[in-house]
């Protein structure tokens, strides 16, 4: 009996063993290119093969009849092909379709630079923002090494592609930030208020930005705050300008955290060591306190809250330009409260929600006094002196909410829409009651929609529209935004962008005349980008048309206009020189405009024709030290003496010229003594930085006296800035992080 069974089994096995069928063919993609390494298999069997470099494959199988052939390869959609396996050789021509892939797909890059850790392909990452030598840990400092930006040292803000500082807006977690920079001081640019360590992602768009944002004629800087910290930690720091300390707590489940920080900055010791040109009768002092909490929701969403309170003051005295016997004493006291609550949530598989709420309140207490040689106040009637004694409070608050809903469509396509409501309240009040208080209220509403359409993995379009209404202007606008991107071959891609952008006139103009209309710009951008694993190349050309700019003379109206056009290059290379990471950017700008009191269309004084930056980074392991250098050059900017001619009743240019070229070589060094000590309980970083190492002269502009007879250069308060600081964090060993960052 057993023998009988054995023979049956033997027979069965031998039958299957004997009748093998060969299956062969080629695997190609939709463009007819071979897919090397593709896996071909018969479902639920071991049989199959791997395609060779020409896409060819061949194997034998014992399977028979109706079967399913599976073909797969990384980056392609799985192909299932029913086949009938007979006794003769089966030939298969197989075609794989590319899978929709966020990483490989074309991305609209016209006008935008992204710095982020989460995305895998970005031009900069957040560490770059911190370690750019000239930046001094100011977010916008690093942005100023990118193409499209100007080196303006006499006024804060991002001056992008012929736009003034007011034309670029900053957004944190989706919502507008009203007072991103410290309050203005005449002829001295101020830093951003927020630490770069607060942000994990940065998108800088020098034009053609998304319909989700508005009210910026030139550019948008979009910042995203960090999520939960890796661990609980405490930190302290001491530097040549102040002290700071903080604590960050992460719960045991690692799904919620809270933290507080405080920093005090006082420039008195520094100013004693490094003489400043202005006479600071009130040395700059800054208090900064923040509180934050963040938690994950049950459904995988994230809630983040961040708020700061800042108070600062300064007072400085300069020689008066109209009289050698007099001085001007400017003083500023500022209080700023900012709070931002954001909630990201997934709603089911396809929907996402982003909700943002923010509130800010800024109070500037500004005064100017004309003083004699003994620093005693003096009042002189008549122009120009009567304008030099003033004192007022300027309060501006902004409450806003913004909701964005996103729905995923087929493949990578998606549609986003939503709305926002912003309530601006500005109030200007003189302290000496010489004129009545003025206030401005604006209920600003916008709705927007945008869609990403992937026609193929290689061709994408972003179509958007935005509708806005301002109660203050009682006017609405509707704008289109369109961009296209097409992938050329493996690594290069080309993008085009077109968009219209509206912006409200400035507060000081609206105070006088609320009957003004929006100012307007139209952007046209063409971009080519090629990214390989070690380097990035970009070239971008743009044309920007300005309409309805605000003129202050002969009347206050929207009769201004202008244009800006240019070409920009960017090259980043981490590969060619071993251990060196560098980037180069160059911008050519041609711009003219007729606005404010300009007598005709001229190149504004905040625009240089040529700007170039080189940023270099190198870590030397032996010394546990990172060296950073940056060099920025720009050609001189025009300056004008624009004055009113009462005989002809018009403004005229009485004098003009071009400033000297701008040069700035900066160095910074980060020394990490605890790196590599596995037993270290604290992590220490020393930072030394010097700007304008070569002590080159910098002239940003010229000021003219009232009658034009005296001309004085606008120069920085000191040629150089030195910074030395030591920062220690406890309870979190970042050694591993630092090592890995420098492998």
């Amino acid at each position, binding site marked *: 009996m057993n023998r009988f069974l054995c023979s049956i089994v033997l027979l069965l096995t031998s039958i299957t063993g004997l009748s093998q069928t060969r299956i062969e063919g080629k695997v190609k993609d939709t463009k007819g290119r071979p897919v090397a390494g593709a896996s071909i298999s018969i479902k639920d069997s071991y049989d199959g093969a*791997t395609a060779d470099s020409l896409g060819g494959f061949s194997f034998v199988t014992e399977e028979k009849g109706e079967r399913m052939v599976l073909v797969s390869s*990384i980056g392609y959609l799985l192909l299932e092909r029913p086949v009938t396996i007979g006794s003769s050789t089966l030939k298969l021509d197989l075609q794989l379709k590319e899978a929709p892939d966020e*990483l490989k797909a074309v991305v609209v890059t016209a006008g935008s630079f992204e710095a982020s850790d989460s995305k*895998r392909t970005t031009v900069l990452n957040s*560490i770059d923002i911190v370690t750019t030598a000239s930046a001094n840990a100011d977010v916008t400092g690093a942005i100023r090494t990118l193409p499209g930006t100007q080196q303006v040292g006499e006024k804060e803000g991002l001056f992008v592609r012929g736009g003034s500082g007011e034309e670029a807006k900053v957004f944190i977690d989706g919502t507008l930030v009203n007072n991103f920079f410290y309050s203005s001081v005449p002829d001295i640019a101020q830093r951003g208020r927020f630490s770069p360590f607060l942000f994990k992602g940065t998108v800088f768009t020098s034009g053609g930005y998304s319909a989700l944002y508005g009210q910026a004629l030139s550019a948008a800087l979009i910042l995203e705050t960090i999520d939960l910290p890796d661990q609980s930690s405490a930190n302290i720091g001491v530097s040549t300008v102040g002290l700071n300390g903080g604590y960050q707590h992460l719960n045991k489940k690692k799904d919620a955290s809270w933290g507080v920080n405080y920093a005090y900055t006082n420039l008195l010791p520094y100013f004693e060591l490094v003489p400043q040109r202005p006479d600071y009768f009130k040395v700059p002092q800054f208090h900064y306190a923040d509180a934050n909490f963040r938690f994950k929701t049950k459904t995988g969403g994230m809630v983040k809250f961040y708020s700061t309170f800042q108070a600062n003051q300064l007072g400085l005295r300069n020689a008066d330009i109209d009289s050698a016997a007099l001085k001007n004493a400017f003083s500023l006291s500022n209080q700023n409260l900012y709070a931002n609550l954001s909630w990201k949530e997934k709603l089911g598989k396809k929907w996402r929600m982003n909700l943002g709420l923010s509130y800010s309140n800024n109070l500037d207490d500004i005064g100017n006094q004309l003083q004699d040689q003994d620093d005693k106040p003096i009042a002189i009637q008549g122009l120009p002196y009567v304008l030099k004694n003033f004192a007022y409070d300027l309060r501006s608050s902004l409450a806003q909410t913004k909701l964005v809903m996103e729905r995923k469509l087929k493949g990578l396509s998606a549609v986003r829409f939503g709305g926002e409501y912003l309530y601006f309240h500005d109030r200007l009040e003189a302290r000496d009651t010489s004129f009545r208080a003025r206030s401005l209220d604006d209920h600003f509403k916008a709705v927007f929609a945008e869609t990403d359409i992937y026609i193929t993995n290689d061709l994408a379009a972003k179509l958007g529209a935005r509708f806005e209404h301002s109660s203050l202007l009682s006017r609405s606008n509707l704008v289109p935004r369109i961009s296209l991107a097409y992938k050329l071959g493996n690594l290069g891609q080309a993008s085009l962008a077109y968009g219209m952008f509206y912006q409200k006139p400035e507060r000081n103009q609206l105070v006088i005349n609320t009957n003004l209309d929006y100012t307007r710009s139209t952007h046209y951008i063409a971009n080519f980008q090629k990214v390989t694993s070690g380097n990035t190349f970009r070239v971008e050309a743009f044309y920007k048309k300005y309409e309805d700019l605000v003129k202050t003379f002969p009347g206050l109206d929207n009769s201004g206009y202008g244009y800006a056009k240019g070409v920009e290059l960017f090259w980043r290379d981490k590969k060619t020189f071993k251990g060196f990471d560098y980037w180069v950017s160059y911008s050519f700008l041609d711009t003219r405009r007729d606005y404010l009191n300009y007598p005709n269309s001229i190149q504004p004084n905040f625009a240089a024709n040529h700007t170039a930056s080189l940023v270099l980074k190198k870590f030397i392991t032996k010394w546990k030290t990172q060296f950073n250098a940056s060099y920025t050059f720009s050609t001189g900017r025009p300056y004008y003496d624009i004055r009113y001619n009462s005989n002809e009743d018009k403004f005229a240019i009485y004098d003009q010229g071009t400033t000297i070229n701008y040069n700035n070589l900066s160095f910074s060094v980060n020394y990490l003594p605890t*790196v590599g000590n596995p037993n270290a309980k604290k992590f220490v970083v020393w930072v030394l930085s010097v700007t304008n190492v070569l002590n080159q002269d910098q002239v940003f502009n010229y000021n003219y006296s009232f009658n034009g007879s005296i001309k004085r250069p606008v120069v920085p308060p000191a040629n150089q800035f030195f910074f030395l600081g030591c920062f220690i964090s406890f309870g979190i060993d970042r050694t591993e992080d630092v090592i890995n960052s420098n492998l």
Partner: protein
Amino acid sequence: MKRIFGTIVLFIVVNLANAQSDKYTSAMSKQIATMENGYQNGDFTPAANSFERIAQAEKEQWLPYYYAAYCYVMQAYMDKDNSKKDAIADKADSLIRRAEVLAGGENSEICVIKSMIASAHMMVDPQSRWMQYGPASSAQIEKAKQLDPTNPRPVYLEAQSKFYTPEQFGGGKSVAAPLFEKSIAMFDTFQPKSSLHPTWGKRAAEYFLAQCK
């Protein structure tokens, strides 16, 4: 007669099942041997594909998925094109997750692969990825050690990571050498649960140890 028939059927079924598991064992042994080619010519794709075929045909075994993931992560290490590494490592990740489900949870060998996957992601752009992948990789090494203190592979990976870490950072050859020696001693005594369970790593450890001297 019925009984006899039943016995026959049972016999055939058992016999076929044995044949089936013999087929599994022999196919796996063959592929584990073919995997060697990958070390020679730097192409682990054919081996990875074969393991994946076995995995999807078997449905119950975690080892084919484990080896497929191992082949892909080795491929990610060896591929010179950085832009491909992420996708390959992601593939390894999806395979090792399936292995984990079939194995009834994490085990020491699975943690070893997870550590390697994190390292592969980091290699693409160390400077911007350390925060995310550095600690993730070492955490998996620690977990692998805890789950099986006799497993030489996490010790080998740790040694390898020290080997590539500069001396100033507490790495270097002098620190790595004793760890390689320790792993080699562990390889010598390590008993795989079956002939199909992972045994790789000793030769590489010996190679690195020679480099240390």
